[in-house]
């Protein structure tokens, strides 16, 4: 952590009526950073956001903003604004008055209010909408007004609670890019809550993956995708085949694993990665798009060779999903591969023996497998 740190929270715990919502959530956000809190519904990401905004108080843990402890400050004293999930535009005020609401409370001079309101509306491409009633706006326009209202006061930190959740897919895609550009241009740090992993990947500088009230992993989109630390992260972001493996004695810097008691794999460890003692079990993940399927023994150099039977193919349009039976002892446990093109979408192939090839560095070693 450097002096660039804008927001620092943790370790936050919170429960509502006996059910624990947050368990030791800690993270920090740098100045101007786009941080996404990603996770399924009920994972605690929105509660974390509400604690940062000041709408909820944590049971324990602190919230520090620019080095100052603001945990006990009410929301109206924090230099943080929120874009609410359902926009929460004031229905009794027109567009311009909604945007100017915060400036007016600060008793800014009229001329300045007018100038900054116009500026903010221009930034979100809503110039000319000043006098419109909010009820007459489309979802996308309401979203822009909410954004203008939140950025007009130039907060150091903007909180966004699934801001694009109510928009249709096409509009959402274009808003993602626009939002990201706006964030870069203004230099405001964003804490962005979403359950959409693609959205998180597209927009974020860093992602905090939430699951059941815990932060499972924090990292750049590349780190989260390329080296997931838990099976939840591997599966939630990008999707993955998750297997169980027994640890065998291995050379330093390498892992020797027995995959589902059938395949021996020798894979390199990441720098600093630690493995349980030989004899213990770990979970491993293999991404479908990193599995190559061959009809003959023509493996690329260095690839791990897994003999399999082709069980089923599903045509997805731009890609094809292939289900491979890999294990004789547990035939129900399939290996899924994804291949581009239509070469594999041939149903005559079902039942034929094939070779699945995986590069050793594409086998991700995850958390210990607690099942034994």
């Amino acid at each position, binding site marked *: 952590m450097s002096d660039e740190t804008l927001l620092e929270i943790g370790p936050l715990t919170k429960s509502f009526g006996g059910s624990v919502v947050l368990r030791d959530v800690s993270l920090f956000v740098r100045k101007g950073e786009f941080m996404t809190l990603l996770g399924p519904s009920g994972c605690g990401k929105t509660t974390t956001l509400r604690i940062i905004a000041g*709408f909820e108080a944590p049971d324990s843990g602190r919230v520090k903003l620019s080095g100052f402890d603001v945990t006990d400050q009410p929301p109206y004293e924090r230099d943080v*604004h929120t874009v*609410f999930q*359902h926009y*929460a535009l004031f229905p009794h005020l027109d567009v311009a008055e909604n945007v100017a609401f915060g400036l007016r409370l*600060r008793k800014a001079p009229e001329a300045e209010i007018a100038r900054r309101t116009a500026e903010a509306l221009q930034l979100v491409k809503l110039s000319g909408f000043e006098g419109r009633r909010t009820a007459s706006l489309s979802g996308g326009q309401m979203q822009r007004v909410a954004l203008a209202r939140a950025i007009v006061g130039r907060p150091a930190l903007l909180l966004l609670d699934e801001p694009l959740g109510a928009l249709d897919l096409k509009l959402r895609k274009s808003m993602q890019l626009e939002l990201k550009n706006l964030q870069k241009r203004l230099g405001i740090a964003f804490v962005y809550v979403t359950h959409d992993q693609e959205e998180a990947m597209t927009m974020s500088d860093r992602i905090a993956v939430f699951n059941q009230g815990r932060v499972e992993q924090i990292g750049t989109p590349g780190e989260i995708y390329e080296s997931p630390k838990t099976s939840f992260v591997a599966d939630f972001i990008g999707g993955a085949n998750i297997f169980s493996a027994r640890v065998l004695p291995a050379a330093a810097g390498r892992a020797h694993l027995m995959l589902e008691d059938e395949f021996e794999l020798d894979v390199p460890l990441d720098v600093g990665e630690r493995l349980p003692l030989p004899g213990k079990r770990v979970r491993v993940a293999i991404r479908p798009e990193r599995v190559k399927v061959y009809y003959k023994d023509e493996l690329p150099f260095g690839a791990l060779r897994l003999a399999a039977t082709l069980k089923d193919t599903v045509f997805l349009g731009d890609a094809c999903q292939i289900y491979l039976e890999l294990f004789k002892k547990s035939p129900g446990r399939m290996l899924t591969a994804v291949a581009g093109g239509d070469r594999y979408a041939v149903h005559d192939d079902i039942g034929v023996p094939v070779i699945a090839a995986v590069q050793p560095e594409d086998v991700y070693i995850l958390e210990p497998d607690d099942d034994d």
Partner: protein
Amino acid sequence: MDRALSWLLGGRRPLASHLLLAPAAAWMIVFLVLPAAGLLLLSLAKNGPYGEILWTLSLNNYRRAFDPKYLPVLLRTLGFAGGTTLLTLLLGYPLAYFLSFRAGRWRNAMLIGLMVPFWTSALVAFYSWMIILGKEGLLNAALLRFGFISAPISILYTSFSVLLGLVYFYLPFMVLPLYGSLEKIPRQYVEAAYDLGADRWTAFRKVTLPLSLPGVIAGSLLTFVPCLGDFLTAEILGGPRYYLLGNLISNQFLMAQDWPFGAALTCLLLTCLVGGLWLYRRWDDQA
């Protein structure tokens, strides 16, 4: 379901919609439109020397109604109705706000408590108030006991007791619409106001209060309008000195046996009330 209803009620099958409306329409015609028409007709008739009705139509009764000797009654009535509306609003708004924002799991119990006066007959309630407020009543006894007064004071048959009775009786008419409109305000609006820098009071002033105005107006109308015609409260808790418009009308029918004049007064009152409601609706549609 919605579709089926709109199909039934919509222009495509007017017969079906008429059939559905028929029972309500019949009820309204028999019990509202016909009596109102009869009242209008009656107001144009003439009172005979022995209280019989002479059907020589004229506007005489209306001319009589604008006699300045009734002005004090009208002003007193407006004063009591206005005062009651203001007091119920001042008492009712905090109550409705508490019910909606703060009561939590006690809300339903409190709402039922608020409704209890509705379930007791107004007559019983007012006679109970007489027992409390009278010269030898509970209130005087308590004040004497704790030394606030040295001799019983008149509380009953004062403007205070009339106002008290009116406020007591009409408070739920104010609180329920207020509660309804406060309940409809999404809590996120209040959070958004906090988020943009408004403290509790400012958020209330700038967001909650303006958004609850429809409830304020509906509650005020529901209190003010029936107050104008109320006669029981003044009769029981006020005595003859606090003779209101409602008493004037009821006396024409019950004491003076001048039904045509009573009908004319009623028609005038109804015109004012319907006019007021119509103005409110127009304002509401524009907003």
